[in-house]
């Protein structure tokens, strides 16, 4: 929009914002939801809306079904920002596709999810360390040609459970649920959010080496994640 005035942060010279004003405006850049916020909101909406509403092509809800290619591209483009945004964007592709406990089977959202995945860092859990809870569980891989269909509503629920364990239960159990999540959802929508929970849980357990290794793997796998500022406070880079 060429006729638009420049935003304050873009102004220079006499109109340039004071350092204080700049600091105040910059402080709003951290208003994005955190991983646990995403999980809780999604779980609440999934519970309150008709089944399938959060699934493109699922047919439920006021918007009806029929995911459009334009819509999918929009979601995929948005995912490039990383971090929570990735988690949220992928929600459109995979959340609430099947009731919790439903068998793993191909479904209508697989193609959508695969389209989105092509824009994301590809990670898989390292199964040998997933259960130890103290080592990185992410390893970059090439694009997968077979994106597995998953009952993603259960994925959101599982992530919420991991978060609840972290906050109100036991960090040990939070790590265990995170490992469970990594095994159940190797290409899950919430890989970043799961890792953040696991890293924080390891720190709470006093396993700083394990948390550090997992944090290093996270930084390598998701170099543009919006979780990085928070990760720096939980497990600073050495």
């Amino acid at each position, binding site marked *: 929009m060429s006729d638009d005035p420049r935003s304050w942060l873009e102004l220079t010279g006499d109109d340039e914002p004071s350092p204080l004003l700049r600091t*105040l405006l910059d402080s709003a850049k951290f208003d*994005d939801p955190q991983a646990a916020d995403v999980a809780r909101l999604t779980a609440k909406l999934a519970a309150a809306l008709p089944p399938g509403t959060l699934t493109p092509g699922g047919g439920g809800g006021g918007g009806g079904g029929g995911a459009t290619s334009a819509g999918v591209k929009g979601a995929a483009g*948005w995912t490039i920002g990383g971090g929570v945004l990735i988690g949220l964007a992928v929600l459109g592709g995979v959340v609430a596709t099947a009731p919790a406990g439903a068998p793993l089977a191909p479904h209508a959202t697989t193609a959508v999810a695969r389209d989105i995945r092509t824009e994301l860092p590809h990670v898989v859990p390292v199964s040998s360390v997933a259960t130890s809870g103290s080592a990185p569980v992410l390893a970059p891989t090439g694009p997968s040609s077979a994106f597995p269909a998953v009952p993603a509503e259960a994925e959101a629920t599982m992530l919420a459970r991991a978060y609840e364990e972290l906050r109100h239960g036991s960090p040990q159990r939070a790590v265990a649920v995170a490992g469970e999540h990594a095994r159940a959802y190797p290409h899950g929508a919430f890989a970043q959010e799961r890792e953040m929970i696991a890293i924080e849980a390891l720190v709470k357990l006093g396993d700083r080496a394990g948390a550090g290794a997992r944090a290093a793997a996270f930084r390598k796998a998701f170099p543009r994640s919006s979780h990085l500022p928070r990760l720096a406070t939980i497990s600073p880079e050495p």
Partner: protein
Amino acid sequence: MNSADPTPSSARFAAGKPRVLAVTAPGPTFAEMYATHAAFVWRSVRRLGVRPADVEDVCQEVFLVAHKKLTQFEGGSVRAWLFAIALRNAADYRKRAHVRREATGDSVPEIAIAETASGELDRARARAVLDDILEQLDEPKRAVFVLFELEQMPMTEVAAAVECPLQTAYSRLHAARDEVRSAIERLQARDRSAQPKERSGP
């Protein structure tokens, strides 16, 4: 909660139901809308005066309303449409919060903006000060300021979101900037006047 409508959105648009004007392309599904704009709604709700602890609940309300009204979406900017819903929900929330504050006698605490020893405001305090300043703007100016200055949204989309003419949106932006500048000056003056008193203790 309305029941699920199994009709594909493309069919509904083609059927030309009242208020559904876009006929050339299917509208977004709710899932697409949520996936693409959930973070935007979250940020907006936060910046429209909803306390952090209540943002999740208000976001849920916004998306439930959006789900209910999606068939009324007339095309154009989905963000603008969602923001209009968020604006109404946040206004309702603030009324409820105001009533709660009156009932409990809570008051909004004054927030000092004095810099830390390192010469910088810490981020949490800066965010609290920004909240305090935004709270001093009336709703129309606050909405334009939030969308343009914090969300970096083009003004045409801002005008659509706040449902006003473009020139009115410009005017609100300029007025909001003036008020924000004044608010910062008042806070700084208050800090300056408070500091000598603290230093000249008994």
